């Protein structure tokens, strides 16, 4: 095909008619296909002119969405991003894709009154378009501390007109934090904090250990444990490496869809060396709710930490 030989030219020219006709037909049929699918979506739109009285909220970021539901404003949600978890009865809410890659027009088509997100929400160009369309875009900092979580709850309570619920939620959380502090104190009184290791398991992939600056780390520290990973982020660590760290407690979270009957037993079958760690010997390998690991410090993380702290206390020796 790449030489200029004349016989190829003539060959091509005799065939030319059919090929280009075919090409043109194909292009136009694809056009027709796409346009029909595009206009099919238009049926779902909400007309931007109708200023309805009910608030229409879009929430991007797992932590934000969790708070929206905790403040009892779930009914006002019209769309969430792909990281958000929805309760069973709300799973038909529109999905906007990943919260750092939001599409301006997709959001505009839902004519929201408020777009809520963490500081990771983006890209900036999309947020600029939304702002110039007079849509209220609010970004709250990612919560890793109690102070930040409470100020986010306050801000959200105001935005969603749920001040009463916000106040109540803070009271409940304050109680949880107080309980946690009491438990942390109890653990500290017993001597050294338990050495904890968090394993993120994925089917047929090496386990990854959660170090500093991960959601698992927040939970371990809240529960009064000592995360012994010694690095930041998630990294693969071999069984031998885990054995050398001698963890007192191993937390596991399964990211594959397959619900295993007994996650701890299947883990020991896959990684037999773990049975020789203190955690394995004392049966201190526990499952952590994956929900608790997304969206930073929030209700599920606090709940998981509380359960973990109780476990630390109930175990006599680590």
């Amino acid at each position, binding site marked *: *095909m*790449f*030489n*200029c030989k004349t016989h*190829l*030219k003539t060959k*091509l*020219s005799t*065939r*030319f*008619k059919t*090929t*280009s006709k*075919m*090409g*043109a037909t*194909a*292009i*136009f049929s*694809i*056009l027709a296909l*796409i*346009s029909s*699918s*595009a206009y099919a*979506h*238009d049926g779902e*739109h909400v*007309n*931007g*002119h109708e200023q309805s009285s009910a608030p229409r909220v879009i929430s991007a970021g797992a932590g934000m969405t969790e708070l929206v539901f905790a403040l009892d404003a779930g009914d006002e949600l019209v*769309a969430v991003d*792909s990281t958000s978890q929805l309760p069973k009865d709300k799973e038909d809410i*529109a*999905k*906007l*894709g*990943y919260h*750092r*890659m939001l*599409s*301006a*027009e*997709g959001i*505009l*088509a839902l004519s929201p009154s408020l777009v809520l997100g963490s500081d*990771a929400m983006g*890209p*900036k*160009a*999309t947020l*600029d*378009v939304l702002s*110039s*369309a*007079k849509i209220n875009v609010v970004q709250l900092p990612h919560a890793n501390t109690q102070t930040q979580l409470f100020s986010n709850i306050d801000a959200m309570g105001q935005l969603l007109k749920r001040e009463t619920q916000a106040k109540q939620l803070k009271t409940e959380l304050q109680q949880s934090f107080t309980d946690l502090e009491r438990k942390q104190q109890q653990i500290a009184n017993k001597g050294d904090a338990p050495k904890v290791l968090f394993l993120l398991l994925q089917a047929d992939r090496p386990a990854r250990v959660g170090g500093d*600056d991960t959601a698992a780390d927040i939970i371990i520290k809240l529960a009064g444990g000592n995360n012994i990973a010694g690095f*930041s*982020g*998630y990294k693969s660590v071999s069984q031998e490496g885990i054995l050398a760290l001698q963890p007192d407690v191993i937390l596991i979270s399964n990211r594959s869809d397959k619900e295993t009957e007994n996650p701890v037993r299947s883990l020991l079958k896959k990684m037999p060396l773990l049975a020789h760690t203190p955690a394995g010997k004392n049966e201190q390998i526990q499952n952590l709710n994956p929900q608790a690991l997304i969206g930073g410090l929030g209700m599920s993380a606090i709940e998981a930490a509380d359960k973990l702290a109780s476990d630390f206390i109930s175990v006599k020796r680590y």
Partner: protein
Amino acid sequence: MDNRHWLWPCLLTALVITSLMSVSIGPLHISPSVSFSAVINWATQIDIGSVAPHEQLVIDQVRLPRTLLALAVGAVLAQCGAVMQGLFRNPLADPGIIGVSSGAAFGAAICIVLFPQGGEYAVAISAFLAGLVTTLVVYRLASSPSGTSVVLLLLSGVAVAALAGAGIGLLTYMADDMALRDLTLWQLGSIAGAQWHYVILSLIALAVVSWQFNCSAKALNALLLGEAEARHLGLDVDKLKLKLIVLCAIGVGISVAATGIIGFIGLVVPHLVRMMVGPDHKQLLPLSAILGAALLVLADIGARAIVAPSELPVGLVTALIGAPFFIVLLLKQRSKLV
């Protein structure tokens, strides 16, 4: 080639239709007539009415820049692909063959993983610069006092791309979850980040490379005979190579910086056009530009429409639409191409 004249209007019509569709289709329902009024409003800066402010905003800030960026990038990639295939006399050459895409990906990866606070322009700039530097390295490796060898260019391109790939792998290993996701998505390409300054830059790049490539069309035809023959025809082959490589690096560099990596267009469009009009670069280059533009605009419509209100990466769509189409074409032509 007496029938060739009707391919021009056919492809131009396809380009106009896809562009009009691109401004009138999207998750937000704006009727075609209102969309076109909004485009006229934007072009003339006179308000002829009948367009709501939020509709005008979507056309101005989302659909028009996206359409024009897809058009410019598609045309640049297809032409660069055609030129590289001609220069290397290799049907598998694509615009990234001289290392510009892999270099740009490495530059973007450095920025995404190591300097996540740099913002999007930092990613675009480092992608562009790394793409140029990589191309320069590949060219230097292949140059000797006796000239530049095409085979050496090809091999050093492969070697440097492998190095860049290893660098990206290392950065992938170091990346946290957020950076990892950004990096992966960047490598799939997207027109979603279309902003006016990217559009203007890409259109300038398109004008420059189209004009310069067109000036070299005759020389590229001569090169098809083989390098020695081209020299005998009085062509300064090494100068031509350098010029085409620099143009390609700049064109692809700007495209990659604006949209990430979009595969397939640059590799396949020139083949499609060649099947229809033969290997004459005078026809091949402008027709590739038109078809490349139309295909990328079309792919971007798909990227926006298929999973609305979220979006697919456009590189995924180009491969999904283009690859099967190309396979069908190959099967039809198979008996005649052997």
